[in-house]
């Protein structure tokens, strides 16, 4: 699997550190840098969200994410591209995903950054479970299949 610093996709169980990722992209020919940060927001489709759980199938997620990075490097005139996606239990405002792209010129770095986040959302095996303030929870994208009362499983004592 390709995992070159400045050209890789990772899943992280630890908080994402944007300055560290940005350092991987520093390169003398880079004239522009574009990043995207996806944050956990406090509502989804009218329901108030208390926290989120992201789960990933690491082996295939890092492979498919690496393929997306490679496609971006092939299809856009960019120099480097990095993406890291969090897994685990996240709270409102936490950083869920970070994408950074460098290029000689800005147009391609904007376009490649958007391409990467769009493809990651479509293709990489990562799942999101929302915990709502009303005590319910559910996996996103599968209708009501997993909706259930969480009174038995809710974390107490907070």
């Amino acid at each position, binding site marked *: 699997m390709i995992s070159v610093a400045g050209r890789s996709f990772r899943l992280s169980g630890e908080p994402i550190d944007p300055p560290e990722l940005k350092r991987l992209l520093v390169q003398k020919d880079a004239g522009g840098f574009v990043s995207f940060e996806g944050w956990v927001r406090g509502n989804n489709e009218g329901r108030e969200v208390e926290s989120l759980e992201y789960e990933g199938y690491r082996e295939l997620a890092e492979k498919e994410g690496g393929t997306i990075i490679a496609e971006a490097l092939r299809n856009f005139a960019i120099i480097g591209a990095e993406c890291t996606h969090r897994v685990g239990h996240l709270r409102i405002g936490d950083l869920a995903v970070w994408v950074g792209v460098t290029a000689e010129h800005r147009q391609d770095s904007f376009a490649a950054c958007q391409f990467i986040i769009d493809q990651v*959302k479509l293709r990489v095996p990562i799942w999101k479970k929302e915990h709502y303030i009303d005590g319910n929870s559910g996996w996103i994208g599968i209708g009501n*299949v*997993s909706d259930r009362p969480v009174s038995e499983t809710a974390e107490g004592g907070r």
Partner: protein
Amino acid sequence: MSSEISVKVEYFAVLREQRGLSSETRLTGCENPRDLYHELAREHGFRLPLRDLKVAVNGEFGQFSQTLSDGDTVVFIPPVAGG
């Protein structure tokens, strides 16, 4: 007459919760992932229809119709929701 093979099934997200396990190794007479999913769905009440799933075999995206071999690892992939 087909014989049984041993496959490892790994579960994620809603399927992991519905199965109550992250992985299991089982003997099956199923020849492909489609039949295996239907067998598991009957046993464990999975409600996600096959059309909403993808499948991975041995760490690569695969086909529901591909022939499974003894020792394969199979993952049924619910609709993804990263980002």
